[in-house]
């Protein structure tokens, strides 16, 4: 007779841990009173007998149940094909790692064919195949999805050359590499080999896979829109394509090459530009202040470098000007909010400005945003406010510095009227159009920004001065003035 019909390894593991803890709890309950001796001896003996009797059985069940279940699924797969076995997985009580490993084995079997090497029926008939069923299952188990992607990262064909419905591949990638479910290192272990494979080995197949196209659309193992997928998949991890390349164990050059490769694909870049929600996650997860309250220059530099990288990559890509403008506007809004320390709800592409408009913020931050045109008032109702500083580099620098000034005003470290001194490219500014080098408006704006920070910083304390200098250096480094021109 089979002692165990089925077990949830997680819950059974919890029972095991609770049993062990209970033995300890009852041993710790102590009384010297002879009146308590009988009762305590009875309960201690009871729990110790239970431990002696059930711990080995639970351990056995944990091993036996999983192994038996997996064998059962594999037997069905070998006899009737992975598609027939796929539904069994959803009723199996196996943990995320086991599920991921089993999915890999079933997909390898699906690719290998039956024992005679013939294709499985679901590959040669219309409709969803085994990969579609397994991917859908994994999408519902995000940790299993991450593990699966990690296991198949070195053989990306398992991911890209299996399913009929490529949206499942996209969703699987999104779920499995999301910062909510995967650590930075895990995402790197998944995405770096995949990008390498797509970039250097298999790009051609994506547009020329030999599979059959079915009348209802889709074909086994075809992922023609992989470009669309990559944009929003990598969006939360853009810092790892720049200053934080080390996190993923690749060089800055390799990371930058990959980003430029993605940017060369118009669809990928458009997807990246459109993935502002993912950007918001990235900036929300980036802390610009250290635990002791001082400014984290490295974090600022990481973000500014990434923005500069994107600006450069976008120049090479053929994206509609309106989309690029929209992207930089959203980036400016996010950057300003992050530097000003505003906690915004996660919003979609259209809700960002409204979210900032209704966010709780101090008078200094509001004045700074008003100055930038982020929160429009009658006084500063300028539709083009966010893009008036010549180039996106200059624009980003202005947004970063002005947001920081607003924050410092709110913290009482700068006078409320100090933004009045900021004159960008206007007559009377450090580099007014009357100057000789007026052929580079962006360069003038950045120089004016340096002048403003120098002037304001001179009247304040060293900590405030260094905070301003850090933002300025990160977003308006002297070389960026040269680059801007």
């Amino acid at each position: 007779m089979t002692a165990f019909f089925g077990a949830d390894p997680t819950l059974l593991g919890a029972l095991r841990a609770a049993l062990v803890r209970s033995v300890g709890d009852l041993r710790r309950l102590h009384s010297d009173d002879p009146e308590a001796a009988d009762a305590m001896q009875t309960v201690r003996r009871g729990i110790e007998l239970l431990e002696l009797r059930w711990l080995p059985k639970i351990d056995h069940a944990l091993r036996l149940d999983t192994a038996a279940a997996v064998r059962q699924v594999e037997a069905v797969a070998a006899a009737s094909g992975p598609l027939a076995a796929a539904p069994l997985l959803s009723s199996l009580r196996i943990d995320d790692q086991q599920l991921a490993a089993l999915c890999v084995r079933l997909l390898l079997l699906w690719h290998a064919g039956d024992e005679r090497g013939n294709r499985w029926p679901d590959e040669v008939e219309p409709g969803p195949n085994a990969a579609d069923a397994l991917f859908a299952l994994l999408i519902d188990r995000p940790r299993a999805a991450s593990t699966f992607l990690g296991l198949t990262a070195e053989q990306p064909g398992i991911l890209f050359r299996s399913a009929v419905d490529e949206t499942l591949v996209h969703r699987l990638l999104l779920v499995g590499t999301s910062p909510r479910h995967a650590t930075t290192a895990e995402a790197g272990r998944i995405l770096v080999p995949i990008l390498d494979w797509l970039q250097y080995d298999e790009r051609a197949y994506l547009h020329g896979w030999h599979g059959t196209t079915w009348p209802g659309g889709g074909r086994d193992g075809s992922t023609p829109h992989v470009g669309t997928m990559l944009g929003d998949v990598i969006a939360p991890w853009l810092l790892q394509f720049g200053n934080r390349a080390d996190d993923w164990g690749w060089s800055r050059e390799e990371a930058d090459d990959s980003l430029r490769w993605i940017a060369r694909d118009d669809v990928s870049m458009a997807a990246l530009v459109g993935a502002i929600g993912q950007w918001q996650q990235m900036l929300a997860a980036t802390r610009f202040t250290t635990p002791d309250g001082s400014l984290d220059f490295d974090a600022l530099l990481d973000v500014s470098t990434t923005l500069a990288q994107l600006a450069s990559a976008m120049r090479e890509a053929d994206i509609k000007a309106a989309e690029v403008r929209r992207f930089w506007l959203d980036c400016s809004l996010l950057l300003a909010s992050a530097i000003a320390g505003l906690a915004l709800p996660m919003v979609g592409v259209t809700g960002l400005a409204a979210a900032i408009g209704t966010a709780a913020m101090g008078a200094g931050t509001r004045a700074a945003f008003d100055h930038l045109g982020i929160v429009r008032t009658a006084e500063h109702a300028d539709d083009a406010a966010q893009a008036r500083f010549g180039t996106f580099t200059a624009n980003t620098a202005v947004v970063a510095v002005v947001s920081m000034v607003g924050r410092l005003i709110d913290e009482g470290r700068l006078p409320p009227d100090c933004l009045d001194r900021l004159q960008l490219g206007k007559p009377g500014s450090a580099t007014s159009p009357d100057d000789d080098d007026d052929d580079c408006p962006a360069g003038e704006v950045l120089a004016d920004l340096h002048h403003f920070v120098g002037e304001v910083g001179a009247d304040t304390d060293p900590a405030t001065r260094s905070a301003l200098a850090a933002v300025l250096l990160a977003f308006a480094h002297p070389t960026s003035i040269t680059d801007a021109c």
Partner: protein
Amino acid sequence: MVVHDPAAALLRTRARNLRRLGTALLETQAARLHRRSGPEVWSGPAAATCLDELQLLGRRLADARDDLERRAIRLDEQAARLDAIARMA
């Protein structure tokens, strides 16, 4: 003036400690172990036996608490008798 036998105070302290011990027994995880062993955790004859035995453990803990309570009551009664004797003396 209310007269107390010092030994009575000791008995009452012991009674209080027995009651605390009884309460602590039922607050241990052991008293709720059976809730972690239902059919959603594992199934089959062995699992059913395990559940029965864990429920039995829960009942034993409740019995132990009742036993401690009865003993505490007896100690309180002894204390009351000692106080009564002290007052008569």
